[in-house]
């Protein structure tokens, strides 16, 4: 049950008429952010549409930490007002998302953080950020052996010996 908090219709001084949103992270940090910064997120946009339909605005609870949330807000602030094709709900999805230099630097973080960001971006439905993270992860696993891959992804080999030697992966080389 989301906490009903009152968010009045005040606007940020000097920043036009953008309304504010209250986001609550899993570590219970309250973060106030302008609505149009977060409009890149389909998830947030749908929430806001819901507010307008019910004329009731409440805090949006998110299942990830403030550390990750702040990183996502940093991303959205950077692209505030920019048109990115991947984030346009009406545009046909591009075959392959473009490489953006700023994103590469922005995502130069450790592996766990990268995985947390992509998960958050997926939850918030920010396609451009999911795409950039996916590219960063793909770069990370390129040219790695299965053993190295387990190390990078932090997964355990849970195959039985028979399964491991089955010809399920018939293509090598």
């Amino acid at each position, binding site marked *: 049950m989301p906490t009903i908090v009152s968010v009045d219709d005040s606007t940020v001084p000097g920043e036009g008429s953008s309304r504010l949103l209250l986001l609550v992270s899993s570590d219970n940090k309250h973060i106030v952010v302008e609505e149009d910064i977060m409009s890149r997120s389909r998830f947030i946009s749908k929430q806001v549409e819901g507010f307008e339909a019910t004329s009731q605005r409440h805090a949006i609870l998110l299942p990830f930490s403030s550390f990750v949330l702040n990183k996502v807000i940093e991303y959205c602030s950077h692209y505030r007002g920019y048109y990115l094709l991947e984030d346009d709900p009406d545009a046909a999805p591009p075959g*392959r998302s473009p490489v953006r230099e700023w994103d590469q630097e922005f995502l130069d973080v450790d592996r*766990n953080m990268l*995985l*947390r960001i*992509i*998960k958050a971006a*997926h939850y918030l439905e920010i396609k451009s950020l*999911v*795409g950039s993270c*996916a*590219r960063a*992860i*793909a770069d990370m*696993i*390129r*040219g*790695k*052996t*299965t053993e*190295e*891959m*387990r190390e990078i*992804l*932090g*997964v*355990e*080999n*849970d*195959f039985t010996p028979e399964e*491991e030697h089955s*010809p*399920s*992966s*018939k*293509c*090598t*080389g």
Partner: protein
Amino acid sequence: MTTLILRLPEDVFIEIFEISDYRAILACQATCRSLSKIVTGSVSLQYKIELAACGMLDGPRNEHTAGMAERLRRLRLYDAAWRQLKWTAKTSFPHLADRFWPAIEAGGALVAHMPSNSAVDAPGPILQQIPSQLRGVEEHHMNAPMSVTSENLIDSSQDVFTSVGRASAESPSLFWHCRLRSWSTGQVHPLSRDVDPCAHMRLIVLIDMYGDFILEAGTHDQKVWDYVVWNWKTGSVETVQTRHTYCTCHFLDERRILMTNDSGFGALPPLRVITFRSTGSTSNDSTGGVELPSYSFQLPECINVEHMRSTISTTRQPALSRLGHFYRDPNDRLITISVSAPEVVSRSGQLCIDIPVQTFQSYIATHPPSDGHTDIVVPWNAWGPSSSRVSRAPALSDFSWIRGTFTAGLRKIIMRRSTDGSTTTMTVLDYHPRRVARALSRQRHGEDDGITILRGDDITAVGFEDLQTTLPCIAKTIPLPEELEAMLLSEGAILGVHLCDDGVLFVKHIGYGAWVTDLWAYTI
């Protein structure tokens, strides 16, 4: 505790894998059960892996083409059909009868000319697309709206028809001229500058085409030949190589050419790769006077290169609309060289050396020239035994009735007749490294496709130890269809065989070099 990565939603994984290469996908699939389940459960990832394993590229996608699941199904059937050599019923091309000897073009197309001594207003050559059921490519043919000379190269992907002829029909001069025309309109190609750097030569021969580049040989006296690489869109000349004899020459890629010594001129290296553009340079850049490296790849010393002959599969692509659901990677090519070695091979006196073209690129990539040395000699033992296959050529009598194109991509066919002459078999060899790897894996798991994995022939003669090679290839032999066998026995019919991307084309001729009387294909 579940690790972080495994708590990612499935579609995020698929998004990551879709931009990864197939090796990374397979390595991930083998890490644990959850990832394995995601990879095997996704049609798009399975299709991606299958394309890589079969050595194919994805065709264009639009509302008229099949979806991913259908492509995957067809691709698996296509691969199995090549493994089992399961051909369709024959397709005939009656409109090609009475034409001149056909030439195979890229992507399962062929060109058939009218005899050059026919009437002036004879119809132009026909470009024939050979159909493929599984790739979804339909039979299609079109006439070029022009009558042309014998030399020509076609790049359907760019709608280019290149030919050599006199500057104009009225011109009394013997000077020749290379022209690039649009296949569909017959007019000068809109991107062509229509300047031929060899136009002042007495005789020019059109050799090869690769994207923007044309390779031509020209001579004044038929003794000294200039090999010229030029850009047909800008008119700029990239390189001129002078040889005192006529060689065979092909593009290796957009930066290199391969010259093979088919002239019997002993002083020339048998295989020489010449770089004509430096890395990253655009076609307008001059190389700035920097000497670009060339590599001479030597053959075993015991081989006599005097009667060397080489052929190479083509790289050019069909037009976008004829690529089908998937198509062969045009960079997969095979060179096959035949050399004389009567001391080793008793029957035909010939040895065959099959070399995947990628061998040269990967050797050069891993052995850059050291300072100041741009003319690099690579001894046979440094490159050959592990990346080529030496075999005994079939006896000459096997070949006497047959002509044609024996390689397509990394596949090659060999026709053999039984000693009593009553039956003929066709062997398809496949050198594709991933298809070979998959066949090896299948064999290890006891699956029997009726194929054998061949390495080089065992040539143990003293002094010929150099001829032991290790490059594996898949081999499958089938008898010829009965109707063909009957035809072989009938008098006067010379059979031409052309291997193409989707099957084998048989051509019946009357007499050598004469008109086609019948032409049909067994395709996939």
